[in-house]
């Protein structure tokens, strides 16, 4: 035995949108299509700073020392944060969704390539990235 589903046709809401079946125009499309979305990277707040992350070029390596003095001295740099900074605040490790912990910034050693090692906050991302290159 075969049942055929009866689909109502041309039912529309008071706003003119199809009900049940058919196409709905999404509310957000109007601004997305005009480039008027407001993504996180689009947000600008007064006094807002930007940042950049230094990542390990090595997959497994001990961190002997990090000299942040040149980066911190660059005009426009507001903060240079390392694992040591975070460890001093008891913030070096963060919980994960699997009830584990993971390093926010590496402290004693890095355990994978591109692991986060240092974090620079500056007036602009251009300056922050400059600071990453200062040794």
């Amino acid at each position, binding site marked *: 035995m075969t049942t055929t589903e009866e689909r109502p046709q041309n039912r529309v809401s008071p706003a003119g949108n199809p009900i049940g079946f058919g*196409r709905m*125009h*999404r509310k*957000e*499309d109007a601004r*997305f*299509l*005009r*480039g*008027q*979305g*407001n*993504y996180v*990277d*689009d947000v*600008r707040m007064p006094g807002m700073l930007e940042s950049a992350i230094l990542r390990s070029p090595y997959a497994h390596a001990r961190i002997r020392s990090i000299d942040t003095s040149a980066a911190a001295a*660059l*005009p*426009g740099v507001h903060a240079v944060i390392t694992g040591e900074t975070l460890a001093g605040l008891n913030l070096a490790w963060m919980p994960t969704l699997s009830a584990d912990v993971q390093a926010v910034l590496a402290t004693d050693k890095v355990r994978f390539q591109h692991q986060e090692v240092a974090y620079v906050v500056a007036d602009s991302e*251009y*300056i922050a990235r*400059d600071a990453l*290159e*200062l040794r």
Partner: protein
Amino acid sequence: MPDHDQSQRRAVQISVNGVEHTADVEPRQLLVHYLRNTLGLTGTHWGCDTSQCGTCVAWLDEEPVKTCTVLTVMADGHRVRTVEGLAQGATLDPVQEGFMAEHGLQCGFCTPGMMMTARHLLDHNPDPDEATIREAISGQICRCTGYENIVRAVRHAAGHPSQPSGASAADRDSEGASTVAGEPSQEVPA
């Protein structure tokens, strides 16, 4: 040691969506950051930073370019057209209509680049087949809606051209000249 000498800055004059803008910029500034940060036109997105994802595509004169791979100073004396310059006032471009009608966007992040590329394609090939559309957008990455609906959106635009062919950015540029310079997110008046 990076050079932060302010005297290194260069004066540029760039017409963006028909509005003349002048600015002193760092020679290394990327065009995408000029559009987004200097002008506040955040419709052009900054995605991969490595010229692969294509969400930063805007037109430099009549050609779509990845603005994360163009320096602002390279656009000096040229015209730029971004997604904010696609609609004519309240009237959406057929490409925008197509993306809305065919659900060619979900999160909308890749959409500006997709649409700027699609507009260029349709200006040069008003009736592209699916393979041609796919090749045209092959420099762009979508990570949620999928390419099927994007291809349908471009086909929809090809089938519903509401503006005469040849009405290119140049025509709209002159109409938009009265918009206040430096005003972020301006719409080009119809």
